Structures are given as structure tokens and as C-alpha cells.
């Protein structure tokens, strides 16, 4: 039987961070993820690397954690971070006493902030409403969550760790009060298997309760749904927060070429099958327009929802979503439930994933008797790009495509450059919106990629292909052909993959109530459903 020392369940930021931390400590581990990386809350969040400002009044402890952790992430993973800075804007309709509390709390928590006048704030962000009272700066940033997760996994894999996507843990086998192995099922092929291990780490986010149940223990997790609106282009160049007690739709994050507005908050039964109702979308938009009035005319590309996994031990009572601490909990089930070798890490934020991984791995290391302390706060997640390769990339690709490829691929850029050298036709841009080359798509589809892809959506999570205004209508087809031409898929498989991809992209757009995206969606439906008689829109 296949075996390893540690199995991690869940390929979100937390699980990926744990894999990397363990690999630095020399502890053999395999990460099993039931879909693709960042399938859970990680891939459905704003990507705001919190400076701590958002929590500073309500939860100074969490804020301080964010302040420290965000500084570390900026240092170890600069390629994932767009250090935009942020503003906390004072709107006339908000409680003025909060402004002072916010300012002094920031000083207390060590969050660097400066006051800017209304005029200066408008100079920085011309799309803010003209009637704002002023603003404060803060070191908020955007982090590309897919890149962050992928980089953690890739770095760990390079050190010998294992990662398996589309591999769902179906059972945790316990003998004599000890974890012995896990069973898994390949969710694409249905194939099943078992891996022996000493420790299982439950990093299942919103699924943590379900995962824990496999080990016969209860981890009370409440899923708090938040919906986000993706807008076609950067309406702001820094993170814009409303300076008030955290509420709905009061953050706008420039996230690569798009910007993301969020979020709502409501309790849901579980992390799957989330949808955004029309009223919820309208509610978000109304508030968004208060934040940035031009949003009234801007284009919403898609709407998606994620579930925050909130740890709700018995004594937390029935408070609403935002009242429960955003802090994390590390549960050693040996001590709590007499299951040796089973650990859960739940709650927290994407921003604090590294810290959560650190405390988890400290516990695991002590259990396994490994005497190596955490290095993830110092060790860069990725090697720098060879400058000669970067220069070469700029010669063979348009400026923006080279810049994007360099940022995304890092040292792997060399594969793209070499591939184009050999076959110049690979320089073709197949996703126009996000400027992804065919070389890159074939690279992520190929064996050299450390985090393999299985579907066209997976390609999107590596490259942003299909994330732009056409939402995969045109580039999805070309990505399908790339998969076919590089012999990754047979014609039938390629066609099936494309069908699934269209479905998934159409779903995300179907929540958009009005505007250009509706027309875009019709175009996609009619093109593939009617002209190519390929994939009919599922009504309803």
C-alpha cells in the first residue's frame, strides 16, 4: 500500500501552506484535494491581503495578526501580491465617531496609516464620490489566491511533497484510537485507493465538519456565505474600504485586471451549491454604487459565492456571521476526542493561512518528534526569474503579455520562452482578455507543470484564461484545441471538457441581472448552442 507520514485533506490556502511548511521541515506529506486547488473559500474570496484595518476596532487581536502576516506574505510571495495599498474612506453617511476609534485602534495595533484630505483621496481615486469627507491610507494589498495556493504547492512538490487534485478523501481509517490510513476516490475517474499515514490534517475549510465526521469527531463549523461581484476593469487602483463597522459590500479590491466588490453575509447549510439571489445581487450593487458611483455604469462580469468556515464551539452561542471571531482554531483531536494522529485547523482568513499552517505544523512536528522549527516566514515561495529569460520574453511577446507571463510563471518562464523559440506559433495569444499564450496553456497542460491541470477551468485557475469579459466563450474553444493538439486530450475528451467549462462559466454569469454581460452570455449560448449545435443552454 502506498504510504506517507502526513496526509492533508483540502487544497485551499491553509492545506497548501501546511504542505509547504511540512516539506521545509522534511516531513513527508501528501495533500489530497477533492477538486482543483483553491476550490473552496480560498478561490472564492476577494483576495484582500488584510492589513488588519477591517478588524481593528472590533477584534484588535485578529487585526494585529493580519498586520504581521500580510507583511510576511508581501516578503515571501511578492509575485502573488499586488501591493496596491488601501484607503479607508470616510463617507458622510457613516458614523463619524467610528473614524476616530478606527484611527486610534490602528495606532494601537501597529497598522501604518495616514490621514488624507478628501481632495487628495479624490486625486488618488477619481472614481470616489465627490462628497467624501476624507480618508486614511493603510497597507492593504491584493493577493492572487490561485497563484498563492499554487506556489505553496509547487514549492512543496519541488521538495518531494505530494499533491493530488480531484482526489476526494472518503474515509479516515482509525484503529486502536489511531489514524492509520485514508481512503480516496478519484472524482473524475471514480478510481479508489488507500494511503497509509500517521497523521491526517483536516484543512477542509467549510467541509471540515464533514471531514472530521469521517474520523468520528465533531468539529462545529458554521458556513457563512458571502457573494462577490466581479467588475470588468479596475475602477480603483487601491483597495477601497468604507470606514465603518464591517458590513455588506464595503470593500472594493482591484484584483488583477478586474475589481471585486463584496460581500454579503448569511448562514448557509454547507459550502456546496451556493447561489446568489437577484435581491442579494441588487443589494450588493446598491451599496457598491454608494462606495464608487461609476459602478452604476460599470460591467459586472460574474457573481460568485463562497462560504467562510467559521468555527463555532458550543459556547459561542448563536451570534450572526460577522460576530463570530474570524480567528482560527487548531484542534488536536488526540487531546479532545482521543483520536491520535488527527488534527483539524479551521476558521481564520486567507491572510493568516501561513500562521495557521505554522501552528499546525509545530504541533505535528512535536507529535512526530521532528525538531525543526518553522521557516515559512523567511523562505521565499519562489525563486526569482533569470533576468536574461525575462529580457528574451519581452523580445518574443508583446510588452503586457511578457509582463504577465513573467509575474505568473517566475522561473518557469524559461519553458515558455524555449517552447516559443522552438515553435514560434506558440506565441499566439489564445486568451485575449488576459493575454495568455498558447505556450503557457500547453505548459500548464503538460508534464513539466508541478501542479497538474485536468480541466479547462483548471487552466483558468493557473492562468486567468476565461476570467475576462468573454468569460471563456472564445478562449475556451482555443484552450480545448490546445489540449487536443498537445495530445493531452482526445477529441472526445476535449469536447467534453469544453462542454463542462462552458457550463461552469455560464453559471457564474447567469446571476448577473442586467447589462452587457447578459448580452455576452446570449452570444455564447447562441454561438455554441445554435450555430455550432454543440452545447445547448440548460433552461431554468
Amino acid at each position, binding site marked *: 500500500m502506498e504510504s506517507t507520514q502526513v496526509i492533508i485533506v483540502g487544497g485551499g490556502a491553509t492545506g497548501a501552506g501546511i504542505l509547504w511548511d511540512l516539506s521545509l521541515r522534511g516531513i513527508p506529506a501528501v495533500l489530497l484535494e477533492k477538486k482543483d486547488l483553491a476550490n473552496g473559500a480560498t478561490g472564492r474570496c476577494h483576495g484582500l491581503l488584510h492589513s488588519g484595518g477591517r478588524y481593528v476596532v472590533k477584534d484588535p487581536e485578529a487585526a494585529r495578526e493580519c498586520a504581521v502576516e500580510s507583511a510576511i506574505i508581501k516578503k515571501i510571495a511578492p509575485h502573488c501580491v499586488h501591493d496596491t495599498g488601501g484607503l479607508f474612506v470616510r463617507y458622510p453617511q457613516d458614523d463619524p465617531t467610528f473614524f476616530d476609534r478606527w484611527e486610534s485602534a490602528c495606532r494601537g495595533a501597529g497598522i501604518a496609516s495616514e490621514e488624507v484630505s478628501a481632495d487628495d483621496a479624490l486625486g488618488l481615486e477619481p472614481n470616489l464620490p465627490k462628497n467624501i469627507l476624507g480618508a486614511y491610507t493603510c497597507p492593504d494589498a491584493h493577493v492572487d489566491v490561485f497563484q498563492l495556493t499554487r506556489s505553496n504547492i509547487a514549492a512543496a512538490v519541488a521538495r518531494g511533497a505530494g499533491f493530488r487534485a480531484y482526489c476526494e478523501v472518503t474515509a479516515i481509517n482509525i484503529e486502536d484510537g489511531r489514524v492509520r490510513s485514508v481512503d480516496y476516490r478519484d472524482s473524475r475517474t471514480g478510481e479508489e485507493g488507500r494511503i497509509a499515514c500517521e497523521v491526517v490534517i483536516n484543512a477542509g475549510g467549510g467541509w471540515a465538519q464533514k471531514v472530521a465526521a469521517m474520523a468520528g469527531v465533531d468539529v462545529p463549523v458554521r458556513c457563512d456565505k458571502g457573494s462577490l461581484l466581479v467588475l*470588468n*476593469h479596475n475602477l480603483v487602483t487601491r483597495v477601497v474600504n468604507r470606514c465603518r463597522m464591517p458590513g455588506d459590500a464595503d470593500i472594493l479590491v482591484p484584483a488583477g485586471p478586474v475589481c471585486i466588490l463584496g460581500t454579503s453575509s448569511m448562514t448557509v447549510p454547507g459550502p456546496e451549491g451556493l447561489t446568489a439571489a437577484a435581491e442579494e445581487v441588487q443589494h450588493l450593487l446598491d451599496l457598491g454604487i454608494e462606495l464608487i458611483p461609476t459602478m452604476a455604469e460599470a*460591467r459586472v462580469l460574474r457573481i460568485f459565492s463562497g462560504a467562510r468556515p467559521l468555527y463555532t464551539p458550543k459556547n459561542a452561542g448563536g451570534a450572526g456571521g460577522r460576530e463570530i471571531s474570524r480567528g482560527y482554531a487548531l484542534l488536536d483531536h488526540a487531546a479532545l476526542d482521543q483520536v491520535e494522529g488527527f488534527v483539524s485547523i479551521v476558521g481564520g482568513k486567507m491572510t493568516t493561512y501561513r500562521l495557521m499552517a505554522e501552528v499546525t505544523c509545530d504541533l505535528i512536528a512535536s507529535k512526530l518528534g521532528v525538531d525543526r522549527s518553522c521557516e515559512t516566514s523567511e523562505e521565499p515561495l519562489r525563486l526569482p526569474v533569470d533576468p536574461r529569460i525575462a529580457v528574451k520574453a519581452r523580445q518574443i511577446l508583446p510588452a503586457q503579455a511578457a509582463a504577465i507571463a513573467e509575474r505568473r510563471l517566475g522561473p518557469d518562464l524559461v519553458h515558455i520562452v524555449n517552447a516559443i523559440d522552438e515553435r514560434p506559433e506558440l506565441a499566439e495569444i489564445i486568451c*485575449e482578455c488576459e493575454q495568455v499564450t498558447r505556450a503557457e496553456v500547453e505548459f500548464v497542460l503538460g508534464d513539466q507543470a508541478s501542479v497538474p491541470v485536468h480541466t479547462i477551468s483548471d487552466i483558468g485557475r493557473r492562468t486567468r484564461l476565461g476570467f475576462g*469579459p*468573454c468569460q471563456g466563450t472564445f478562449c475556451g474553444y482555443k484552450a480545448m484545441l490546445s489540449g487536443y493538439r498537445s495530445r493531452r486530450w482526445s477529441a472526445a475528451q476535449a469536447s467534453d471538457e469544453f462542454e463542462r467549462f462552458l457550463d461552469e462559466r455560464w453559471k457564474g454569469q447567469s446571476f448577473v441581472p442586467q447589462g*452587457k454581460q447578459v448580452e455576452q452570455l446570449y452570444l455564447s449560448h447562441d454561438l455554441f448552442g445554435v450555430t455550432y449545435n454543440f452545447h445547448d443552454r440548460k433552461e431554468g
Partner: protein
Amino acid sequence: MRRNDISLDNCLKCSDCVTVCPVVTAHPAYPGPKHLGPELERLRREGLPCDTEWVEYCLGCHRCDLACPNQVDVSGLIAAAKARHQKPFLRKMRDFWFARPGLLGSLLTIAPRLTNLLLGLKPVRLLMSRFLKISAKRRFPAYVAPDLGPSQAAEAGAASVLFFPGCAIRYNQPDLGRKVVQLLQRNGVRTTIATSGCCGLPALANGDEAEAKLRARAGIESLIEAVSSGTRIVTACTSCGHMLKTGFADLLGDEGELAEKSRKIAESTFDLGEFLMGRADQGLLNEAFQPSSLRLAYHAPCHQTSQGIGRPWFHLLRRVPGLRIEDLDAGCCGMSGTFGFKEEKYPVSMAVGQRLFEGIRDADPQMVVTECATCRMQIEHGSRVKAIHPAELLLAAYSEQGQS
């Protein structure tokens, strides 16, 4: 807000704009309007380096804007990128002058004969080709001492307009300017000649936004008074007309009072043909045309099409009895003002014009009629058929009765 601030969001990536772009047809490596416009703008707003020399190849013909089913300001986005584009020294020098036909015209018409002599000399043209990157294959238009005749005193009861002549008429074809005045006079309209300089469109086309803004400000200054008292501005150059109608407001749209004034000027600006068609609508067009046996072909300049006024001149000329006129309907001529003069762009310019030249050859007219001075240059250069402004023809159609 400027239209292009948000219009990039309207792009559905349908590529209709690419199918109508004349540069795409002529120069296959050109990435096309969709990419250079909304696509790159979106990434530029992310802060990515997006500069590319290709933006220099946009003709500013606005066909992409017209083809776009979703009203993306495609060419406006490209023009903004052009304004940010860094170009090599020699071309920068050249484009400095190309951006300032007013300044150039006033210098070159100090001693027009000497100017024309020099500009006609082969060695001079070779030097210009080498050091100013101006194609030696092109001939400069002749420069003429500016003389548009006197403005006419307003007359009680008579309509009056303010004529905006533009640089080509002022410095190269003042006789056309005088004919415009006569034509208006034949229609009972008194004409004042605007003292304005260049409209600023050449500056915009050459990526010199600062100069374009200066010109727009000066233009507003010189026109606003007349406009405020209800006078209409008439242009006989389609590019000036296009600029007055859209360019001022696009450039100064953020500047409160100036924005308001630009809008006023835009609302009061009429292409001469459009103006006369309006008179015709009211039954005020003097239709005492003499029969003519001319066989003409009409070319609609891009900046005529982009004004959204239909084809007034085509219909006006058809009112001349016996005159036969055919619309060539062959797209952009490729000249685009100063574009065709540029050494590196000359071949593209001629390749774009190919369809038009072939159309002229097939139609085999006695003359080609078109409103734009640089279209006329290109047509004569590429097809060897004489090209003429429609106002001249219309005026000539009255002439049998003698001048009034």
C-alpha cells in the same frame, strides 16, 4: 465624463471592429482595433506596460467605432494610447511639425513661391525622407498666400454663418475658401470668416494631446462669442468638422466651463453640405442649377462618415440636372491627413487606398468628388484622376447665369 472612461466595458469581443479596419486589411501584422483599444486599455488600467508602436498605425478613421454594435469608443481609446506612446527622436521631430499645420502653414506661406520651389526639389525631398522620415514619394501641396477674401457684413434679415476654413483651405487652397463664401452667398447666406487657427485634429492624430488641447482651447476662445449669439459655424473640411463636433468635448470634457463651451460649439457646427441640405429641407436651397453632363464618382471621407450626417453632398450634387454621380463606397483612402506622408507608413497608406483606386478605375469618372483635402491628394496620387471639392462643382453649376 469622457465617453471612453467606461465604454471599454461594453466590448463583447465580437471582433466586428476588426473586420472593418482598413489597416487590418492592408497590413496583416497590425493587431487591430479591438486589441489596441478596449483590450489593452483594460490591462493598462491594471498598471501593466502596454505601450506598442502599433498604435501609431491607427488611421483615426473611426470605422471601428461605427462598426461596434455596443458603442465602444474604440478609436478614442487608441488615440489615448497614441498620446502616451514614446517614439524615436526623428519621428518625434517630424510629428511635431505634422501636429502643427497652422504654424507650418504660416511659416511656409511667408514666401510661398520659394516654399513650393524648395518642396518640389528632389534633393530636398530626399533630405526630408532621410532626416524627417517624410516619404519622398509624396508631393507637398502647393502653399498659397492666405487670402480668403473679406468677411461679409451682416445684413438684416439675411442668414449669416461663421466659416471655419481650417489649415488646408487657409494655406493651400484659399480659392476654395472664397468659393465656399460665394456658394453660401448664392444661397442668401452671409459669411464671416473665423480667425481661428488649426482645429487640433492633426495634433491628436500625431499623438500630441497637449498641443491638441491648446488648439481646442484657442478654438473655443475664437468661436464661442459668435456661437453664443446663435451663429452657426460652417466647415468645408470634414476633419475640422469632426474635430469641432467631437474632439473639443472629448479633450476638455473634464474641464467644467470649457466642457460646456465645447458642447455649445459642437451643437452649432455644420458641415457645409449638411448646412445646405438643411436649407434644402426648408425649401431655401437655390436650385437654379444649369444642366451638366459631368460623370463623377463620389468618395465619402472617413471624417464625413463619422459625423453621422448621411451623405449630404452626394444628394446635393444629384440635384444638378444631368449630372451623373456614383458613390464609390470603397472605404478609407489611406491618407489620413499626415499619415500617408510618413516614410514608414507610406506603403500601408497606399495599400489601404488600393480598394478605392480600383473602384475609381472601374467607375472611370471624369473627376472624383470628395470633401477632404488629403483624400483628394491621395486620390490624385493613387489614381491619377482629378479630385475636387463638391462645393466647387455646386458653385460652378450656377455659373451659367453669371456671378451676382
